[in-house]
């Protein structure tokens, strides 16, 4: 609706489109208060615009490439930052000397549209503690080769509520391209993530829908993680559906010591210690290590000092996904355990199964040797997708298992995430 109106104003103002478009200022056609940031603006000029913005206003960057050496920040509620398109307006932070992010936002009601942030030292766009966040048609990229010196996160809302990330593109993050942490009510849709360590990561979130995204050429395509020691401790209710997750075989280039460093190259999707997730109708294929992994935090062998944290994944339901393309050459520590486990049951010949579970269960949840119905791990109607439950820890008396019959169960469908507070902006 807004786009149509903008177009109408442009046509009306120019009285004929040809040759006039380039003369329009960045605020032309913007409804309401708008602060233009001309294409020759310095970082100080841009920062001044972000300080002077008032609630309800728009800060508009021009087409062109801005060269900023210092990070920008916004702390005014209900401000929209726009550009002329994510290929036309580029905020380049190459050579950045100050600021741990490109853009830091700490205010509610933030919208970012139609621009790119490139080559920040740290994170690209970080939004902390905000309600109502829309990131739309934005691009965050590290333009060189995948490298540990690239920034950690591309689009990075943390401790936010009502978050929409759509039609965006992230490339080259040394941690996660799109990373949503400790947030509630999250929709991540129709984005593309390439050449990151993790393409898309949902961490310690409550209620997230992740759909129609493409994740390829990352180390791991899509991660749903729950980590200890955080204020939002036990994430739950994640739906992952209709995504294209393929050929994520890039060597892990995360700086050592980071949790995503544990993700082996060639991982489609990993669910780590999450609760209530429904994963369906995805295409996941051509991964060297595994198409789908489910693991407990205990398998990482990192001490846990958070008594409220539940390290065991529960109530996961994988159904109607399409898996293909296995290898016999899985990588990393997990790959080694997979190979050992396959050898233990003389199944090395068939390649790595599509679905790898570490098989670690919570003894306190066992009833007659298995989880109660509401806690179970369920895997149904996934074509000819095959499976192995590993022997973790190695040497455990219990042998690896490939029989899917115990996983032939279902959970109720999770409800869709509603972003009511975003109103029209979410449509």
């Amino acid at each position: 609706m807004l786009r149509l109106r903008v177009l109408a104003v442009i046509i009306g103002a120019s009285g004929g489109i040809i040759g006039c478009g380039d003369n329009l200022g960045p605020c032309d056609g913007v409804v309401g208060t708008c602060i233009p940031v001309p294409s020759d603006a310095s970082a100080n000029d841009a920062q001044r615009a972000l300080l002077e913005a008032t609630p309800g206003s728009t800060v508009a960057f021009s087409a062109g490439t801005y060269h900023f050496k210092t990070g920008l920040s916004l702390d005014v509620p209900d401000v929209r930052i726009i550009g002329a398109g994510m290929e036309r307006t580029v905020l380049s932070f190459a050579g950045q000397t100050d600021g741990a992010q490109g853009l830091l936002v700490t205010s509610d009601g933030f919208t970012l549209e139609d621009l790119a942030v490139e080559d920040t030292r740290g994170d690209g766009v970080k939004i902390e503690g905000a309600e109502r966040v829309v990131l739309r048609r934005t691009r965050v990229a590290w333009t060189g080769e995948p490298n540990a010196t690239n920034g950690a996160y591309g689009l990075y809302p943390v401790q936010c509520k009502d978050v929409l990330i759509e039609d965006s593109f992230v490339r080259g993050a040394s941690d996660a391209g799109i990373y949503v942490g400790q947030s509630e009510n999250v929709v991540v849709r129709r984005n593309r993530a390439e050449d990151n360590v993790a393409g898309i990561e949902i961490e310690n979130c409550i209620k997230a829908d992740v759909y129609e995204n493409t994740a390829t050429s990352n180390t791991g395509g899509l991660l749903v993680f729950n980590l200890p020691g955080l204020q939002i401790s036990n994430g739950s209710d994640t739906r992952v559906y209709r995504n294209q997750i393929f050929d994520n075989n890039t060597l892990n280039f995360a700086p050592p010591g980071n949790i995503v460093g544990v993700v082996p190259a060639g991982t489609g999707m990993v669910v780590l210690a999450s609760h209530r997730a429904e994963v369906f109708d995805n295409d996941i294929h051509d991964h060297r290590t595994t198409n789908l992994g489910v693991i407990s935090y205990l398998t990482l062998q990192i001490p846990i000092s958070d008594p409220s944290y539940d390290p065991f994944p529960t109530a996961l339901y994988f159904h109607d996904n399409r898996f293909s393309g296995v290898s016999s050459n899985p990588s990393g520590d997990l790959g080694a355990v997979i190979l050992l486990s396959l050898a233990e049951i003389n199944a090395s010949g068939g390649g790595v199964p599509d679905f790898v579970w570490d098989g670690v269960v919570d003894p306190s949840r066992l009833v007659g040797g298995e989880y109660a119905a509401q806690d179970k791990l369920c895997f149904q109607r996934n074509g000819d997708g095959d499976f192995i439950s590993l022997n973790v820890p190695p040497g455990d008396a219990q042998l690896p298992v490939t029989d899917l019959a115990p996983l032939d169960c279902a959970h109720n469908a999770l409800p869709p995430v509603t972003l009511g507070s975003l109103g029209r902006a979410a449509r």
Partner: protein
Amino acid sequence: MRGGGLAGAAALAVALGACGDDLPRDEICGDRRAAPGFDVDAPFCDRLSTYGLFSELSSQTPATGVLPFQVNSALFADRADKDRFVWLPSGEVMTWSDPGALELPVGAVLIKTFGFPTDARDPSAGRIVLETRLLVHRPRGWEGVAYVYDRNGEGRLAPEGASLEVAWRDGAGAQQRQTYLVPNKNQCKNCHEETEGVLAPLGPKARHLNRDGADAQNQLQGWIDAGLLVGAPPRDAWPRSAVSDDPQSGTLEERARAWLDISCAHCHNPRGAARTSGLDLSITAEPAALGVCKAPVATGRGSAGRKFDIVPGQPDASIIMARLESTEPEIKMPELGRTLIDEAGVALIREWITAMPGSCAPD
């Protein structure tokens, strides 16, 4: 020239005092006031001298009623020295509070000036005064902004911050050249929002103020005696933070925790900007929250390849040391306010971790 300007301003200030808030900003802001004054409802004036907080800006000589104070441990600010003052509206008082900042009345102004000695070996060589930050208690809350001194010695409003080149000689006589960063308004908030969304003073806390001032009298007692501070408990119940660089002031543990408190805890507390990391470095934090054997969450390159924030006995395996010893924007901690390494702070935290018992090996 300066003196003439001041005399003229004094005459004008009388007229201004009678006119009040209805004047347009230029006139409210006009020339220097005869006595300190601050209109808490008006936007910041372009020139610092307007407020009459100093009888002489260049030497940072406070006007009558502008109270200097010192703190036990200070946040490292790229080796800049700092002068701190508080001004209270006539008849208003401060009220005791702990462990948060003393309660200051609406209208109070906290003033902090950053500068360098021209030659640290020779006080008579003068001082390079760079910026003065004001933190003003407005009716709707605190608001902060920086004034950067121009070549005439006037403080100019700089909400977007600044990057300044400074040349000075340190205590060893070495010529130092550095880029000094003045924070923008949002960056003021990044540190001063100890609780998200609530801008507040950091320095004027009882434990930081409980020390002798320049007049060799206890600062809190002095304010109580002058009727400027009320509600204090008996003196033996006052908290006192260690002086991080004075071994006589407390144990290694106390000094290290005091340093973390003043350097890190404004963000790294359960309600601060770094709450998302799960790392709590406030004075009351328990060891696990303090980062002992805590795996990082969203550290990026800041991990330096290390597994835990603090590994007892092993500073070079502790992420916190890598953070303190870096000047790279995405790695260094504190994130703001420094481009240099705080050598004394690094040495203190290194010593503290080295002496810490225990290990992070799995049971």
